[in-house]
């Protein structure tokens, strides 16, 4: 097995059991008349950081829905991802305010530095995933970048790349 593959499976190695038990808790919380597929998918994505196929099938089984229907709901909403995401989720806001403040140049700078392209927005070592979002409601701070819940306001392309670099270096040292 190459190093790259090892890194890819490592998050589930550490968390498989807890995640799977949590998945069952989430489903159990939502059963009954008011069970809501979207709420389950949101909570499960929080746990797994994306929606693996087999987990979607498991949810369908538990809720007596067809897997095709669950897949349909999961692919309809942009908030759900069926691809594994990196350890750090780098979100660039591209709402109107951020856009006019040139948020896409921030996005492009990170793409260039980490060799990311449309359709391949996660680094091969699974450390970063880059994505855009249409307005996080922090227009006063435009342009805005969010990394794993932490918000960086009035960010320049250079500053954004520097922050991502710093996180990458820290991970390297820890390893």
């Amino acid at each position, binding site marked *: 097995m190459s190093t790259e593959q090892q890194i890819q499976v490592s998050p589930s190695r550490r968390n*498989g059991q807890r995640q*799977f038990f949590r998945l069952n808790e989430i489903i159990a919380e939502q059963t009954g008349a008011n069970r809501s597929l979207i709420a389950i998918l949101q909570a499960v994505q929080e746990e797994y950081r994306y929606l693996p196929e087999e987990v979607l*099938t498991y949810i369908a089984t538990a809720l007596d829905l*067809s897997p*095709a*229907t669950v897949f349909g709901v999961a692919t*309809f909403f942009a908030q759900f991802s069926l691809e594994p995401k990196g350890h750090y989720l780098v979100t660039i806001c591209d709402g109107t305010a951020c856009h006019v403040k040139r948020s896409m140049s921030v996005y492009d700078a990170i793409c260039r530095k980490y060799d990311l392209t449309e359709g391949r927005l996660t680094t091969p070592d699974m450390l970063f995933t880059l994505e855009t979002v249409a307005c996080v409601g922090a227009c006063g701070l435009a342009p805005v970048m969010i990394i794993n819940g932490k918000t960086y306001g009035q960010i320049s392309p250079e500053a954004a790349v520097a922050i991502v670099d710093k996180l990458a270096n820290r991970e390297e040292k820890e390893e």
Partner: protein
Amino acid sequence: MSGTITIDQKQLPINGEDNLLELIRKASVDLPAFCYHFELSDFGACRMCIVEEEKMGFIASCSTPPADGMVIRTTTPRLQRMRRTILELLLADHDRDCTICERSGQCRLQELTLRFGIDNIRFGKDIEALPRDELSASLVRDPNKCVLCGNCVRNCSEIQGIGVLDFAYRGARVRVMPAFGKSLAEVECVGCGQCIQACPTAALTIKFEIDSVWAALSDPHKRVIVQTAPAVRVALGEEFAGKAGAISTGKMVAALRRLGFHEVYDTCFAADLTAMEETAEFLHRFEKGENLPQFTSCCPAWVKYAEHFHSELLDQLSTCRSPHQMLGALLKKFYAREQGLSPQDIFVVSVMPCTAKKFEAKRPEFTTEGSPDVDAVISTHELARMIREMGIVFEELEDDSYDLPFGFASGAGTIFGYSGGVSTAVIRTAIYKLSGKRPAVDFAFTPVEGFPNVNETIVPVGDGAIRIATVHTLGAAKKLIAALRTGELSYHLVEVMACPGGCISGGGQPLISDAQARHERAQGMRGADKLQQIRAPQDNLFIKEVYQRWLEQPGSDVAHRTLHTGYTSRRRVFGQFIPVVAAERPVVDIKVCVGTSCHLRGSYGVIQELAALIEKQQLTDRVNLEATFCLEQCDRGPSVVIDGHLLEGVSEERLPAIFEEMVVKNLV
């Protein structure tokens, strides 16, 4: 709702119609629509049926209930413009290679394009060609021909209760597809082909096997034998402008001879044989009170459905192969030898109303000395295609009759093609067998209240009675099975057919646009039964002969080996597992099934317990624990596999002992 409504300046009374579209069509206006289907829920997706109402403005007539005093216009310049735009938009992304399209001439999109005189599409094509799914044995799915009407989606979930297909993604990227974009061959599709019948275009079509049949017909070393199913004779004529339900057996046999088939047999003969075997099996179970109710097994879509969803019922399924497989087995096993041929020298073709039979014929268990018992299954529609390709003028053919000995059937064999037929055949055989008298009358089936598509009859025998139910469509079967489980309903024999009304409206039949054709085909079948002087399979001399020569008696060992089969559980979606405890250096590998039935039987508890045991013994770095989807042992779950050893019915109480024995000992 009552009252009157004005449609194009004409007054019409409201007579309980659910929606405006129904009422407008009664006013002799053929309003266009893709997503409106006579037996599915209203959807309102395609917007072709928009009309203008005086106060409400533009409304989709299919999803608006009629109200007193409405003033409707069905054609105005603005409506025309809107409909044309919708069509243009649909056509913009459509694979418009009509000349080589299977549905050309029967395509709703093509028909409406012509009707609205669209000769120019203003919009450019925005989407690259998507791959066709040709892996299924029964059907082909071509997303490039899809108009997103959702008829297949609703048919599969509303009528069949399965939901193989659904909409996925959003906006311009919306597609209809199976879960995770997998092939139909990799998911729980039973191959009934009802989605083909519901599709207005060629997005879902029959998987053709014509080429292999032409090849066999031109091979001088093959003896090509054909058999035709009961329901083909009442529908084939429709392909040649004949009336629905008209019996065209004679012309069909003549056409098959002209095509070059060496011997032409009737699957109804094999249906007689099925009735004999199935009755013997049923009476045995009935006397012993075992594995009841017995479910029929003639419908391959139902069999596959049961394998996917009701592994607990597999012991209750009749072990009888479906009629055409029985005849295939006779031909390859006994007839070939008598003729001095090997099974490979004979090429058996089944002409079926069905697409699920295509999958059935490819089951590995249905082979003789490595040769498939049935080499090719072609649908009614494919046979019509072959007849046309050869230039045979069907209407002008002189009637011909089947060959003997496998071409003669009793009335009982003839009626296998519609819901209630198999049960009637079994009743006739059973009464004959129990009383020694020829059955004089048929028992009337009465609808079961609260259970659509379910009918029942009670046959008095001796001091007791045999309770029989028939059900058609798998959605209705699902409901019936639930009621059997709770004890709300109780039967000794349950006949299941996957298609509405039975094989007469199978996925391989000519397309129909209303329930009337279905009714007429069933009527045709009943007529064919009445035309036979011999109504019960026991009276069929050639059936007697087959038992004398080869099979001894119904239910004998040799009959079992030749005519019966077994079933296996099938998973819903291929190839998935969830890691629970992932060891760095795994030594022992444990998989716990979390497929539907194991999940219901408490496999999650098993996982929790195993995880706890692994933790307690501090083996987390040496034992791999995975939740896996379906080990295909659903009837005996929860299933656990430890280092390749399958354990069934694992309860939490048994786990510590199993763990000690199979895991801890191996590690010490």
